């Protein structure tokens, strides 16, 4: 089964052979997990997203036409789930900070765990976490997974030119954060 291509495995799955899907999981679970992990920042969220991405892929396998590679298709599902998770978290944080739901629904997260998470996060992770969600996704795909702009364009459904700009800005922001540079809109930049 390890010698079969993705498309052949998909055909096997459609014929009712679940082992073929397990093989697909084995091939891509780490890349999907790490992509989610770098975007959402926590193991728990990444674990949930990785599982959910494969579940969605399995149930929607009948709709997969083969226009893109299976991995690109699966990756797109994982990225969308990751971005949704970020938006949800931002909304919750906003409501809590504005004391809208904080009074009625106090945070169930352990405060000590939150501090621990911050302390163990690297400076690079902190920088990535500060990026807007789409820039964050593009950065992760290009910087860590070294995907081509064409592949990223398939995933994000954005033009290649827009992706290049997104990535460039993301790189500058990350560099500025890691060097404590004062962000500048001009070509020059100053150290704090």
């Amino acid at each position, binding site marked *: 089964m390890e010698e079969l291509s993705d498309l052949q495995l998909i055909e096997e799955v459609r014929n009712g052979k679940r082992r073929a899907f*397990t093989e697909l999981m084995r091939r891509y*679970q780490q890349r999907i997990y790490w992509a989610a992990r770098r975007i959402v920042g926590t193991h728990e969220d990444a674990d949930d997203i*990785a599982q959910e991405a494969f579940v969605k892929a399995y149930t929607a396998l009948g709709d997969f036409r083969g226009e893109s590679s299976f991995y690109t298709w699966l990756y797109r599902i994982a990225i969308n789930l990751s971005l949704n998770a970020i938006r949800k978290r931002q909304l919750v944080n906003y409501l809590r900070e504005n004391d809208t739901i904080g009074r009625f629904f106090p945070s169930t997260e352990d405060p000590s765990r939150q501090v621990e998470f911050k302390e163990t996060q*690297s400076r690079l992770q902190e920088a990535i976490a500060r990026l807007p969600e789409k820039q964050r996704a593009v950065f992760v795909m290009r910087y860590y997974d070294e995907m081509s702009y064409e592949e990223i364009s398939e995933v994000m459904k954005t033009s290649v030119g827009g992706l290049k700009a997104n990535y460039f800005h993301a790189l500058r922001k990350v560099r500025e954060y890691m060097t404590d540079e004062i962000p500048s809109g001009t070509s020059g930049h100053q150290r704090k």
Partner: protein
Amino acid sequence: MKFRQELPDINESDERALVERVRALEDESGEKSVPPVPEAYWQNLIIRTNQRVDAASSGKAISISWAARVAIPGVVAIVSFLIALHYYVPLQTRQQSDVESMVLALPDPVMDSLLTDASLSDETLFAVAADEDLFDVPSEQIGEYLIQNDNAALFVELLPEEQADQMLDLLTTGM
């Protein structure tokens, strides 16, 4: 009017330089960007994902949950009621019909003996007509009763004198 920001003309060398700078900074910090994951996690992830796939694809998740909370208790209650209804109500009827049929199947003499109160067997019941005075018992019946009960002396005492003489004549002539 919406002004569209012009995208900067980014060439590959500029991008490459930035990437190298960020990687160098990452190396300089000496930190791992994300803590590693133990190897056993991946096998466990496959197992858990397969379980989720099973639940999602079979469509049983929702139906099982609904059945456990609503359908099963409801069906059990209804079935229990019907069973109780079936067995409880007909049981009484059957018992009655059984007793009744048994009684009706008895022969008439037996039936009659059952209707007689056994506790009064030592006394003779006199059947009288409805219009007769219950206290006006014929003397012959009284006589038979006394004789049957070894009380002939009382019987003779109660006989009128004329009847007593006639009876004595009959008895002495027959001897």
